[in-house]
């Protein structure tokens, strides 16, 4: 038997049979399935496997190279951490959906052609929305619906684009593309939706924070990084990505400062980190692509860690609103500690994972003379520390004491967070090992005295800005609120338009119906008028009157006859 089948099948199949196992055996499967998948990935040789013919095109369901491999590894590590994090839960729906979701994301990463990519692309959308609906609230349901529509549309764009592309190129292979080829712009937009490009980003901030404490962790890993992988595969060196990425890295951080839901703050910093990766892909040099991929790898780990810590807070306290929290370090010291490690990693503190990954993108930008972009990214780096690095741990675990006294997070959650935190520090302290699995050979030294000093200056003074603004009362307080974003367009304007359209259609229809009804009634009235028992055409006639009329008729006939002859 050949083992060269998609690794995705192990997870998807695992997810589908998971509900049939009883409690304790299921928990064992939760750990076992990603482990088996990981071993399978390790023995899968470099190359193209699982080729089959479809409508005259060659589909290759498994393409293993260094780019797909590293995404496969990190997706499986994330799936494993997720499984541990979800061990305490009895909600088998979420556990199964997570495996199917992770499996389809891995399937998409290893897809060698656009059809296979499309199939797994849509499967990620369908399986992930279950994680949003698993919160089982009305808000989550509606938000999940908006999420599903967006992602299905992204898949449709991918499919239409792929049809045009394959017609013109004569091949369906998923490889480097150029925006002036037919259909490619649609594929680009489809990838842009998944990667949360500016103006296509809103599904991320809308839906992720509505999911459960477990679901959001899984969601934060796969969809967006699948988008990043697809961009790195198809559009490396596409210049417009540099500018798109720079905008992505900056605008969400303004929202993050004023957002109250701390998991939503994390989605804004997620969007900001994706911006760094998109810039790296746009620059397209070996260093930049390495940087983008390394950043995606590191990001998945620290972002999961941050979402896990906030998930633990949600699980224990029941809310993650900054306005309600504070002082939780007293009750959840371990969670606080892990959250700070995640925060240090996303902020790119030396010795943490963000530092060794992000600096490659920054350096690559300068090597290609994108000074303005570099300055924007530097601002975004300071900003992400400010809002994710400080705001998240500060408002949840410190700030004023909210009075909440709860238990520490369950042991399985702490273990998952502990492993993620260890990996964040491990990558930061020993980058050489990490650099070996990157797509290109690395000749980059993150730890120079100058670089460490400059980064520490940047971060410490960002922290000082936060401290000064807090102490002077300038920092905006956490308020229960909702901030308008692009979803306002369809949740308010489109809704108003559709309501108006609905009303006018309804009004036209009712007036048409009542018109028709009165027309029919009047017709009946007329018929009744003539055919009623006393009506002209239906009443009884006496025979004598008929005889008289016949006589009158004959007499007039005679009269006319005479008049004619005498004339």
């Amino acid at each position: 038997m050949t083992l060269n089948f998609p690794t995705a099948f192990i997870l998807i199949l695992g997810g589908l049979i998971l509900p049939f196992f009883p409690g304790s055996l299921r928990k064992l499967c939760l750990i076992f399935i990603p482990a088996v998948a990981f071993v399978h990935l390790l023995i899968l040789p470099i190359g193209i496997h699982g080729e089959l013919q479809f409508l005259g095109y060659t589909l290759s369901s498994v393409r293993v190279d260094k780019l797909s491999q590293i995404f496969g590894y990190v997706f499986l590590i994330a799936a494993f951490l997720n499984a541990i994090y979800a061990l305490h839960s009895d909600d088998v729906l979420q556990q199964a959906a997570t495996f199917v979701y992770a499996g389809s994301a891995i399937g998409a990463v290893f897809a060698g052609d656009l059809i296979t990519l499309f199939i797994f692309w849509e499967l990620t959308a369908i399986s992930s929305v279950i994680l949003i609906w698993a919160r089982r609230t009305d808000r989550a349901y509606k938000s999940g619906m908006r999420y599903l529509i967006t992602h299905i549309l992204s898949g449709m764009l991918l499919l239409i684009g792929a049809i045009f592309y394959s017609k013109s190129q004569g091949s369906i292979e998923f490889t480097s593309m150029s925006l002036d080829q037919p259909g490619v712009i649609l594929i680009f937009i489809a990838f842009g939706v998944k990667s949360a490009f500016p103006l296509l980003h809103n599904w991320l901030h809308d839906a992720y924070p509505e999911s459960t404490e477990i679901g959001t962790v899984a969601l934060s890993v796969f969809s967006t990084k699948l988008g990043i992988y697809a961009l790195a595969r198809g559009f490396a060196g596409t210049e417009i990505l540099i500018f798109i990425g720079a905008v992505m890295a900056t605008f969400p951080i303004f929202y993050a400062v004023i957002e109250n839901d701390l998991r939503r703050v994390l989605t804004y910093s997620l969007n900001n980190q994706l911006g760094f990766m998109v810039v790296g892909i746009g620059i397209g040099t070996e260093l930049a692509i390495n940087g983008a991929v390394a950043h995606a790898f590191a990001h998945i780990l620290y972002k999961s860690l941050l979402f896990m810590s906030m998930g633990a807070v949600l699980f224990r306290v029941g809310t993650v609103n900054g306005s309600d929290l504070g002082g939780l370090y007293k009750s959840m010291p371990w969670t606080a500690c892990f959250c700070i490690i995640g925060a240090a990693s996303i902020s790119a503190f030396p010795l943490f994972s963000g530092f060794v990954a992000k600096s490659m993108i920054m350096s690559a930008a300068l090597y290609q003379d994108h000074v303005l972009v570099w300055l924007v990214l530097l601002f975004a780096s300071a900003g992400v520390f400010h809002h994710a690095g400080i705001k998240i741990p500060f408002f949840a675990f410190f700030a004023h004491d909210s009075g909440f006294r709860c238990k520490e997070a369950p042991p399985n959650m702490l273990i998952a967070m502990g492993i993620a935190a260890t990996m964040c520090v491990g990558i930061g302290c020993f980058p050489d090992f990490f650099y070996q699995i990157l797509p290109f050979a690395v000749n980059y030294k993150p730890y120079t005295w100058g670089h460490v000093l400059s980064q520490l200056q940047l971060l410490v003074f960002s922290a000082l800005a936060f401290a000064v603004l807090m102490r002077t009362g300038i920092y905006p307080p956490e308020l229960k609120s909702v901030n308008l974003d692009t979803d306002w367009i369809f949740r308010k304007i489109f809704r108003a338009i559709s309501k108006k359209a609905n009303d006018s259609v309804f009004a036209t229809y009712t007036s048409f119906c009542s018109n028709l009804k009165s027309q029919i009634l009047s017709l009946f009235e007329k018929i009744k008028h003539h055919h009623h028992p006393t009506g002209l055409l239906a009443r009884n006639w006496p025979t004598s009157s008929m005889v008289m009329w016949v006589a009158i008729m004959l007499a007039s006939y005679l009269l006319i006859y005479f008049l004619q002859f005498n004339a």
Partner: protein
Amino acid sequence: MNKKKYWLDKKANITKIYIALWTIGIFLILGDFVIHRHEDFKTAELFGFYGVYGFVGCVILVLVAKVLRKIVMRNEDYYDT
């Protein structure tokens, strides 16, 4: 409720952290005298460039965000009504 007093509960200790942070910041800036930072972007070699950029950047970030809040903030139930 847990009445245990923590070190951070004292206001004086928070001020200590605040002062410590400034001290670290100043030492880091002074580090520029000791270590010459070789930068590909020459302006970044200026004394204390990163410190000033980080501080000013974050203050601008917060001030702009406050303006943004005036424009985009709505009641929590805005979409429900």
